[in-house]
């Protein structure tokens, strides 16, 4: 892998980020630029050699001289093609390495344990990690091609100056004026092109949204509805594209017309010189040939450079906004109770800081949840749910209360209304890696393709199947991953809500063995699971009742909450 140095974090604004991306692969970029300069210079030498061959060979009817110039032409072409070959490879390598690195950085930020505070859809994140990163990294080419193009222009200006200095100055100034004019005229066109990009991106995201909901659409026979919605976005994008294309072509025609004026003007001036006998026919050919070639780099500089730069700038703004988005759970300032790497496959009971307590003192519970600690409306009274190592504790609550509790357990930061203590340490003061190592909160959202692999024992306990398909099978896979995690404290939220009763019973039977030695809190309304707990807390608006599942069955509101 090619070494690429790229720091995004410190970039103050999009411009700074683009500049950093430009400089991220300095050696590759410099190598590519050097080779492309050689290629351009060799290309611009072709008309020079041809002019000299016409002068000294063809016009003078000297075959030996023509042959000599032909050999030089071959040598020049060989330099040209070899430089182009390796230059373009190095250039692509530079772009791709920077793109790879940028993409890793963006994905790293999105998946970071601290999370992102804002609500961003998967489609938006995909588009930032995809096309925005690609456009930003294409800015690397600014250090390659424009550099070579400017070198070519300089070379042409020098060659022309050697023939007759005012020509060189005229081409240089004329070229500069052309680039600046096109830059000015091109602004509205570029705005339209941005607009078009947005519309196209819009169509893509509608397509993704439509296809993600394919099963729903099929079930309701609503495919026509979805296609009509997509067709409307598609038509809109087509119109925007057409408008943008026609303005783009107007711009191109204007740019060509302006450069035609420059080329013909120079040709007329050179012809005047030739008539006056100041320059030879061969020199006239060189002038005309060079000016004809100069148009290429001039157009590239006036059209491509700004487009690449502005596209990179716009993408850099989006990338930077994502990278600088505040964390959902910022890392606490100081490290408390930092436990290093935990042994895989579970932790022996009592191995955590509680063991360091003075002899005779009662060990702190592995998990202690202090409700209403931070003055929340929900629980007037201060209530505590404590789970010791080796204990299986259930929590029964109405759906919104249960979800709110699990959500707060998942976040465990200073903003939450409950205080979570792990072996006596305030979880809000734990860094995210330490927290994840000590507490796993498996809520309904914790599922999908990114679950860590679970060993056979955990899969068996959770009744997980190969290649899960139905909702219940996915839930069992998620439970297997939770059971397999090495964290000493486990919170399960409705782990079997989509599982059929027979399987649920099998899972309940295996739960205690599968979680042996750990502190487990199950937030559920499933009787089969509650039946195997040591004790259950019934959470209501203002009160918390505590007892065994069997005892609590006597309370009407408890029975009402069970499913």
């Amino acid at each position, binding site marked *: 892998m090619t070494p690429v140095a790229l720091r995004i974090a410190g970039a103050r604004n999009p411009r700074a980020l683009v500049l950093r991306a430009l400089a991220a692969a300095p050696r590759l970029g410099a190598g590519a630029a050097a080779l492309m300069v050689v290629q351009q210079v060799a290309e611009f030498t072709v008309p020079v050699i041809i002019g000299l061959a016409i002068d000294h060979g063809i016009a003078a009817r000297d075959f030996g001289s023509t042959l000599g110039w032909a050999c030089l032409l071959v040598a020049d072409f060989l330099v040209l093609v070899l430089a182009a070959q390796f230059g373009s490879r190095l250039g692509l390598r530079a772009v791709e390495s920077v793109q790879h690195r940028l993409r890793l950085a963006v994905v790293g930020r999105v998946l970071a344990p601290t999370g992102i505070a804002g609500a961003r859809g998967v489609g938006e994140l995909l588009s930032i990690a995809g096309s925005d990163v690609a456009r930003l990294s294409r800015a690397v080419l600014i250090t390659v091609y424009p550099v070579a193009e400017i070198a070519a222009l300089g070379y042409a200006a020098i060659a022309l100056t050697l023939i007759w200095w005012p020509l060189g100055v005229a081409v240089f100034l004329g070229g500069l004026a052309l680039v600046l004019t096109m830059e000015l005229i091109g602004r509205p066109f570029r705005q339209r092109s941005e607009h078009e990009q947005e519309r196209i991106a819009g169509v893509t995201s509608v397509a993704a949204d439509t296809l993600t909901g394919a099963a729903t659409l099929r079930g309701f026979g609503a495919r026509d509805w979805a296609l009509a919605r997509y067709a409307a976005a598609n038509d809109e994008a087509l119109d925007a594209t057409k408008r943008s294309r026609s303005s783009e072509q107007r711009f191109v025609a204007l740019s060509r017309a302006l450069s035609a004026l420059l080329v013909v003007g120079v040709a007329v001036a050179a012809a005047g010189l030739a008539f006056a006998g100041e320059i030879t026919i061969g020199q006239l*050919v060189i002038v005309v040939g060079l000016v004809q070639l100069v148009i290429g780099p001039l157009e590239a500089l006036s059209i491509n450079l700004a487009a690449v730069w502005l596209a990179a700038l716009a993408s850099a703004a989006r990338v930077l906004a994502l990278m600088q988005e505040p964390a959902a759970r910022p890392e606490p300032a100081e490290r408390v109770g930092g436990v290093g790497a935990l042994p895989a496959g579970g932790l022996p009971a009592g191995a955590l800081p509680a063991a360091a307590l003075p002899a005779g003192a009662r060990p702190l519970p592995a998990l202690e949840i202090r409700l209403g600690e931070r003055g929340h409306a929900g629980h007037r009274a201060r209530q505590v749910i404590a789970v010791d190592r080796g204990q299986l504790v259930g929590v029964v609550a*109405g759906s919104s209360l249960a979800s709110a509790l699990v959500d707060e357990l998942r976040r465990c930061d200073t903003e939450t209304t409950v205080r979570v203590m792990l072996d006596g340490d305030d979880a809000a003061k734990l860094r995210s890696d330490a927290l994840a190592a000590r507490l796993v909160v498996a809520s309904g959202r914790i599922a999908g393709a990114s679950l860590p692999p679970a060993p056979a024992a955990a899969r068996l306990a959770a009744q997980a199947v190969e290649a899960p398909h139905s909702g219940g099978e996915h839930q069992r896979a998620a439970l297997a991953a939770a059971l397999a995690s090495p964290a000493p404290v486990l919170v399960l939220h409705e782990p079997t809500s989509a599982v059929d009763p027979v399987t649920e019973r099998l899972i309940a039977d295996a739960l205690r063995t599968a979680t042996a030695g750990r502190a487990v809190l199950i937030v559920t309304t499933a009787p089969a699971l509650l039946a195997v707990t040591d004790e259950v807390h019934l959470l209501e608006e203002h009160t918390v009742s505590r007892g065994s599942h069997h005892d609590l069955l006597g309370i009407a509101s408890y029975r009402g909450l069970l499913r």
Partner: protein
Amino acid sequence: MSPSLPLASAARSRRWLLSRVRPLVWRLLGALLLFVVAAAAGLIFPLALGRLVDAVERDDAGAAFAIAGVALAGLLVAAVIGAAAAVVLTFGLEAVLADIRLRAVAAALGLPASISDGVSAGQLTSRGSDDVDALREAIAGPIPALASSAAAIAMTLAGLFALHPAFLAAVLVVVPVHVCAVRAYLRRAPRLYDAERGAVARRSAWLYEALRSRETIRAYASAARVQGRFSRKSWAVVRCALSIRIVQSRFFLRLGIAEMLGTVALLLTGHALVAAGQATVGEATSALLVMLALFAPMSGLLLVFDDLLAASAALRRVVGVVDAAASAEPSSTLELPRRGPGEPVVALSRATLDLAGVPVIRDVTVEIAPGQIVAIVGASGAGKTSLAKLIAGQLAPTSGRVEVLGRAPSQLPGDAAACLVTVVDQHPHVFEATLAENLQLANPAAGAGAVRDVAERIGLGAMAQLDLSDARTDGALSHRLAVGRALLRQAPVMVFDEATAGVDAAEARELDGLIRAACTGRTVLMIAHRLSQAESCDRVLVMDCGSIVEDGPPEALRAAGGPYARLWEAWAAGAP
């Protein structure tokens, strides 16, 4: 290895593309003609410069301004006509692309359940949006470039011929070099492009899954492991791009050598012709300037090759989906047949279903009377969802008969089957639209008032106009939406596939109540994972290994001591 969507052959996708382009053939020919005119006008410039050289040799200063005027006029005409040609061509191409985009999404949506059930959402999205995007990028810009380059090259050859046939002969000497270069390129490049598209698709499908389950990655602090895997996938794309560039740059090398040979041949031919008095120095100059002007179109042609191969790789993926989709024309209306009282609404007779050679439904015979509310229970994998899909016409029986209101649902075109049987699936999707639009999809004919009423009934009245694209949608909202859709929908048979899976008991009870209200007077099949749901149904079908093993009212089955009674005992073990 997970199953993947089919890929069309290169020949098949070419034919398909041609069929899409055919209506525009006159527009495209017109554009090509304009390109030829533009290239011819562009040729005036080097030819005029040759005349200028001759005028200098003759010392005929008077002719110089006329020649310069013609040269300028030629360039201006070339600029204007060239732009017009590009506009005509791109408008046509963009229309074709918009049409392809729509067809690709329609095809991806129309994939039969037997194919789409096996692939991940990421794969489907990648085909329907990423590949179409790639196709667009590889066509919208490059095809006009190809047309313009081809016209320029043809005109250059014509110009050389006009100057002197020997010039054309000298340049044509290098054609074998070009042929070799193109053949060497085409031997290796297409495979590399397919590999690149595949690597990109794997990268994005994987990223899609990772982003969707980012909470999971956070919960298990597995970001580092996930990042490592992503890094490998991303680097695989880089490797593909680099190996393509190597083949490309070799192609460019060979083209450059052809150009060199052509230029040298022209120089020597020019010398010979001038020495023999067959051509003037000006004509030799023109020939060489014409050749110089060919540099840009030739490298343009190279880049186009590149894009065309990328387009072909993307096209094969798109056409693969188009071909796999049912060819039935979309139709979402159906005259509901009248049935006499007492006749069954749903009737299966000896229906079996094999998926990928595995029997999923075995010899099922059952009749459901109008207005019945039927629960289907059984362990995961017992065939509950497959049975529902048979009844909804999403899957066709391998043998036996499935009839709803006397018609075979799988034979009905497009969405017509959903007018008979509407399915509320396990994971109702919340579309990036307003809540009202999300409801309306179930019945586009429903007025704003009806939609508002339904929004009220599902307790989301205050959100009716809220755009749900940014809302962090939780399971409860999507299930509520699904029930709202069912309320709006006018189908005689409704299937709820674990419609309350993943929500807790209190919420589930409320949803069950709403479902009841939604289904008065209709025939309902409820795939239940909670026995409390089954208990409140008229009739229970117990499934095991693809067969119906028990059938009857819940209380009777409970008393019968069979499989349902055992399920009931398991469930009730911890129950109040």
